[in-house]
């Protein structure tokens, strides 16, 4: 379960602040966060992931209070428990599809890249139609394919929590369906929590609940 209480956060520039009195997401629940741009949707995901530290309040994930952990512990917690899909895919341009999917294992000492993990990365890539492009550089992929690579990277460590930021933005309908199916199938099969920021009204029905980010402001 994810529970945010009495959260206060600002970027220091004074032009943006976020206040959340109480916000919870149950394990296995899928939640869509909607709202106008600049209302803190992405910031919320970053606070839950521990990428941004809260100014005040508590972020509790399955009984672990993230603000009380050291940077290293937060990072390890994030790596082991959370899968992140970013708005702009954030793939590393000089790496292949396979290398991007397995990148968390290469960049973090908390994960060990074994032959089994590599094989699973190939398997996941195959499931989303990238099996034939596994060694191709990601710059040579379409937008939809890149997004699928980003999703594969998030799913590889078998996270309990999926935090996805506009996972279907700029995708054609076919790619959109493919990516959503991938996320929901994974969440369902693994009892994973899915928290998605989106502007896409057409996908809201797929989620258990929708939250408006306007509620996070004074």
């Amino acid at each position, binding site marked *: 379960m994810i529970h945010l209480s009495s959260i206060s956060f600002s970027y220091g520039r004074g032009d943006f602040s976020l206040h959340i009195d109480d916000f919870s997401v149950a394990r296995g629940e899928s939640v869509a966060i909607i709202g106008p741009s600049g209302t803190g949707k992405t910031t919320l995901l970053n606070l839950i992931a521990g990428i941004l530290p809260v100014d005040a309040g508590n972020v509790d994930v399955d009984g672990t209070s993230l603000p009380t952990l050291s940077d290293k512990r937060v990072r390890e917690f*994030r*790596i082991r428990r959370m899968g992140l899909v*970013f708005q702009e895919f*954030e793939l590393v341009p000089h790496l292949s599809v396979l290398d991007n999917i397995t*990148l968390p294992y*290469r*960049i973090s*000492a*908390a994960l060990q890249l074994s032959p089994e993990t590599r094989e699973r990365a190939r398997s996941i890539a195959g499931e989303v139609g990238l099996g034939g492009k596994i060694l191709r550089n990601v710059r040579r992929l379409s937008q939809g394919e890149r997004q699928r690579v980003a999703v594969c990277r998030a799913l590889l460590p078998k996270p309990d929590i999926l935090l996805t930021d506009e996972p279907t933005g700029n995708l054609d309908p076919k790619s959109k369906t493919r990516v959503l199916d991938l996320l929901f199938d994974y969440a369902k099969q693994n009892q994973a929590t899915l928290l998605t920021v989106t502007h896409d009204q057409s996908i809201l029905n797929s989620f258990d609940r929708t939250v408006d980010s306007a509620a996070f402001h004074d």
Partner: protein
Amino acid sequence: MIETLYLIWRYLVYHKVKTGLVVASITLILYLPFALRVLVRQSAGELTARAEATPLLVGAKGSPLELVLNSLYFATDTPTQMKYEEFQRVLDSDLAVPVPLYTRFRSHKNPIVGTSLDYFEVRGLRLASGRNMVMLGECVIGSKMAQDLNLKPGDSVVSSPESVFDLAGVYPLKMPVAGILEPAGTPDDSAVFVDVKTTWVIEGLAHGHQDLADPSASAAVLKTEGNTIVANSSIVQFNEITESNADSFHFHGNQIEFPLTAVIAVPYSPKSGTMLQGRYLGGEEQVQIVSPTSIMNSLLETVLTVEHYAVAAAFIIGAATIATAGLVFLLSARLRAGELRTLHRIGGSTLRIRGLIAGEIAMVLLTSAILACAMTALTAQFGFRIFQFILF
């Protein structure tokens, strides 16, 4: 560690052009001062070795450096001359073995060195094929000249006229190649060695022509007065010394007055050398005696000073190159800000990400250093030979 190295490798391979350029720049800037130093040291060693193998040189008064460069490297087109009597003077002193040198003439671009067989002993030159010159007009040539002109014993080389406009000048002399020397890695490899008398033939101080007493030469005879026969210019002059015409070659004038460019003096002992040098200290002396080692050392001091300046310049250029490479890395890091942020977000620690960047820089520097070392080693092994090949 392996994973970090893999990521470094992938980045460098993907940006192979940029990486290649940076590696090439740093490699060159590391290589240049070392290569310069290696080449200068080897050249200095070679110069010194040749100078040390030439204990003393006697030559006409003038520039000692010019005398040494001409006698050791046959480098001067118009060397100063002295009389053959200076050879006799060293011989008569009984203090050193004299080796005559007359290096005025050339065959194409190759110097013709008029000397004696002692020269080969002093220089440690050995025959690769053929035999030594034993007859007037024969020559022994260096290995590089033989290779360049595809010459072998039995072939001939011809002396070149000093000026194509000097129609009344010396006759070209056709000289049969008696032998070819083993490679020595010195200017001797490009030289034509003949007996000093042969160079006097080239000079016109000796010549051979048809026998005027022979009836076939009657058309050329103008008048006969006792033992003196006066002939016109239609008389046949020989431009090659053969067994059949060798006897007809004769010298005009006193041999003691004939020219030399230098005499190598090999003293019997250090004391003999000192005594010999003392004999040339008189103010009225028309010749000088020099120690090539001390002259070359003076030259090398200048060369080494120039080398220090060149190395200093290379270091300044190196600093500029390293600064430029640093700028490239800095700009690259800025361009990669998004990528680095991603690495952080997906679990990379700041230390690990900095390590990745540092590793990329270290890999470039290490590769450059290894390449520079390899190139320097190759230069040490082959550079001087290439240098010699270009020069000699």
